[in-house]
């Protein structure tokens, strides 16, 4: 009996601990961006409560920034919602990639999990699942702890983030540094390196040529498709390696 209780306590503690350990760099990166968003939204005429509500219901950084700039420009509700859809469509790919690792998870938990799928949580969870020894509950912590941080930071920004000096302690670089490290984790074989080079190059060209954030989805899909075709053709990978 006693042992069971202890084991259980340790289990919850371990899940939280593992989750927090992976989530803190994301949280650190969200704070300055969240505050910046809050300040901007306040200047667009939103109250801290409205700002917090948007962060709670939408929880998607770049599209929130875009929405606020469109609100200030007097754009229609339909235009803002369509733009949000286009910007966030990339999460479709991320959830598809994660679905491979979440076969045993209940649909209720999946519904909760989906709410926290972001570029950052996806990248961390995907890498950890791939390495093994990662569990859906820790992944859930990685999804939701940054979410709480984001909501809090955006409300703080709404109350007056202008008192925090811009670019303090290089904090603007936190998310970029995180993406660098997460990309490094992905480069396990030549096909990933090739995909990254192709996708990065396409993304630069497309980001300069197209408005908005479409370049992320477009570059990723094109690059992954080309590399999959090359790998299949060269026969380097056995087609039967996944049963």
């Amino acid at each position, binding site marked *: 009996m006693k042992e069971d209780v202890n084991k259980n306590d340790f289990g919850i503690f371990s899940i939280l601990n593992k989750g927090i350990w992976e989530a803190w*760099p994301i949280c650190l990166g969200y704070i300055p961006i969240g505050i910046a968003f809050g300040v901007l939204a306040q200047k667009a005429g939103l109250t801290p409560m409205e700002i917090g*509500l*948007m962060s709670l219901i939408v929880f998607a950084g770049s599209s929130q920034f875009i*929405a606020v700039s469109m*609100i200030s420009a007097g754009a229609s*509700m339909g235009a*803002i*919602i*369509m733009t*949000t*859809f286009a910007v*966030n469509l*990339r999460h*479709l*790919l*991320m*959830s*598809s990639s994660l*679905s*491979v690792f*979440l*076969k045993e998870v209940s*649909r209720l938990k*999946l*519904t909760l*999990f*989906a*709410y926290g*799928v972001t570029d950052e949580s996806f*990248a961390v969870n995907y890498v950890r699942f791939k390495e093994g020894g990662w569990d859906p509950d820790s992944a859930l912590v990685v999804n939701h702890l940054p979410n709480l941080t984001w909501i809090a930071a955006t409300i703080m920004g709404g109350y007056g983030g202008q008192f925090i000096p811009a*670019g303090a302690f*290089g*904090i603007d*670089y*936190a998310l*970029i*540094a*995180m*993406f*660098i*490290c*997460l*990309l*490094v984790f992905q480069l396990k074989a030549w096909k*990933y390196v090739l995909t*990254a080079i192709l*996708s*990065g190059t396409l993304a*630069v060209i497309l*980001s*300069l040529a197209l408005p908005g954030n479409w*370049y992320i989805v477009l570059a*990723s899909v094109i*690059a*992954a498709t080309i590399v*999959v075709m090359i*790998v*299949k053709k060269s026969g380097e990978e056995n*087609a039967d390696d*996944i049963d």
Partner: protein
Amino acid sequence: MTSTDYLLLILGMGLVTYLPRWIPLFFLTRRKLPSKIIDWLDLIPAAILSALLIPALVTGGEPLQFTLFRPHLWVAVPTFLFAWWTRSLGGTVVLGMFLFWIVEKIMV
């Protein structure tokens, strides 16, 4: 924009953001994917990370332009090497921030 309009707006934004996150998880986890799709999905993370990262390093300004002269790119080189050798996410973030902070101080 009235309060009701605003509420409708964020509910609409929330819905179109949530559905692409939810649909694959809810439906794909209950069926077996063809191996071709799995191979393709396996490449997506590297592709997305690179598509998010590289433009942030080599484009800037208003209007957006290609440039190799931003501190974002220079700082990325030692940060990348550090990540490669240590494989530490927290360490890489702290080092990247520190180097970026120093470089910005020097340049201003």
